[in-house]
């Protein structure tokens, strides 16, 4: 378990964040992101740390964390598979992909595997509707045009400790391959 403190370097980064805004309160979202990157989630203890650092009431930070779905107010798996089941992804089999991942990992959406490696979530539109069905991994890399095979591959890659490459989107209109 990591010590829940910001060290000197962290505090320097936080000062840089604060400088972008006219008041300290406005820094709460980027600082929460910073904390989540460092600690893995933003549970109440971390919320308290952010509140103290920015001199805000913990209740305010709690209010922000619970409003935005990407802040994890509870610990999650090392890899969070956000499978989109919204409009366009649903039309293209988003729920099939979700259920396939659930079966494969033996957990339901909202749960975490016992080894703490994977969580699955069924999420709303991720802004990649043209590449449906798709998913995002722990708020970062996106995997487009999901198939069962691709899901298998991604899970294997992550398990083996390797990183997923971000797939560039080639604009179908372009004649020359631009990437």
């Amino acid at each position, binding site marked *: 378990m990591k010590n829940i403190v910001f060290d000197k370097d962290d505090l320097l980064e936080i000062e840089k964040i604060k400088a*972008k*805004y*006219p*008041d300290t*309160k*406005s*820094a*709460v*979202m*980027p600082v*929460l*992101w910073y904390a989540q990157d460092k600690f893995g989630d933003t549970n109440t203890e971390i919320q308290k740390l952010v509140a103290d650092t920015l001199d805000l009431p913990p209740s*305010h930070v709690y*209010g*922000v964390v619970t*409003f*935005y*779905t*990407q*802040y994890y107010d509870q610990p999650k798996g090392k890899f969070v598979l956000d499978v989109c*089941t*919204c*409009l*366009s992804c*649903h*039309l*293209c089999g988003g729920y099939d992909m979700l259920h396939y991942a659930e079966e494969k990992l033996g957990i339901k959406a909202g749960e975490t595997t016992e080894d703490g490696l994977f969580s699955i979530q069924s999420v*709303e*539109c*991720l*802004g*990649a*509707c*043209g*590449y*449906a069905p798709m998913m*995002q991994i722990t*708020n*970062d*890399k*996106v995997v487009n045009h999901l198939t069962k095979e691709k899901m298998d591959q991604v899970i294997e890659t992550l398990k083996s400790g390797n990183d997923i490459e*971000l797939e*560039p*989107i080639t*604009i*179908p*209109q*372009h*004649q*020359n391959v*631009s*990437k």
Partner: protein
Amino acid sequence: MSKDWKSYKPLLLPDIKDLSSIDVYEKNGGYEALKTILKHKKKEWTPENVTNEVKSAGLRGRGGAGFSAGMKWSFMPKPDGGPRYLAANGDESEPGTFKDRQIFEDNPHLFIEGAIIAAYAMSIDVVYVYIRGEYRPYLKMLQKAIDDAYEKGYIGKNILGSGIDVEMYTHMGAGAYICGEESSLMESLEGKRGYPRVKPPFPAQKGLWGRPTTINNIETLANVPLIMKNGAEWYKQIGAEGHAGPVLYGISGHVNRPGVYEYPSGMLITDLINEVAGGIRGGKKLKAVIPGGSSTPPLTAEAVEGIAMDADSLREVGTMMGTAGLVVMDEDTDIVDVVWRISHFYHHESCGQCTPCRDGTGWLQKTLEKINRGDGEMRDLDLLLNICNQMEGRTICALADAAAWPVRYSIDRFRADFEAKCKKTVYALA
């Protein structure tokens, strides 16, 4: 409608390799518009003249509401020496919409140049680019572009020696559709829960931190350098009358080649589906189209015939341009199921401030879920319409309307589908 769309050359997303790098962008005429404006800032291109040029070009907002950009800029009060803000809206969370992301990925400097010109035209000193948290990989791409532009003196203090200062910062959201609504976006930037504000006061009067603020969509701002480089007259010639300019059409759903396509406004929906996106998958027939993101009322295959993608044409058939994110559904699509999923989205995303929205979206979802699983009764359709009546126009922001419209118009236009699912139960014996 320009009939020669087949020979159209993209302007927002031109086919140039590595355009996202600042050197390539500059080599292709990038930042020329900004340079020219700043060079002639005393006479030809005063802030007022720039605003007027954008106004007469007829550029309408690409974020959903389609409001005149130049007009919006002219609402900003006279500078009083205090800070003024531009919030560039890259929240892009309306289901079916995925076009701004392509700008971050492929032509970020066009957007940056447009935002700096907009800031100059409104005497704004700070630009915040609000980007949804799910776009983190693309935010990194934009941040790199911003850093490069700072280095070359296109952003920051004394831009290109003009004496004009503009700072540009990115702000990452964290998963809340509502933060795309302009006043919610400002609350979020101020470090709060994204509760939309009651208007008036409007952002130009009292925006970010109580100061004059303008909110524009990313694609809207990316159009600005095109206008300033080629002139309003040139721009007006592109696409449909009353809705000029290139449009990034995001096409998703049951088509062969989904993706973002740039064509003039006023494209026929059938051309977009059948030619641009390669037709319906599996050679199937069309059943329905959502023309501009999930909140825009769906159209039947018959209604789509001959209809162009511009505000006026779409209004005539009872829908809207929205974000130009077309969602295409084939003949096998279960409309009830689709509408249920849409209402699931709006219920999840309601911020909960207004009772008609907080409770209404929940009732829509629950009632549709009941019908969808085959337990519906005919009177549930009346109930749904009744709930819509109590939501529309009765809330702080337009999310409640956005949730009600797809339900209301789907029942209206695809009533047989709904009735078929209702009739399965309860009254079967009668």
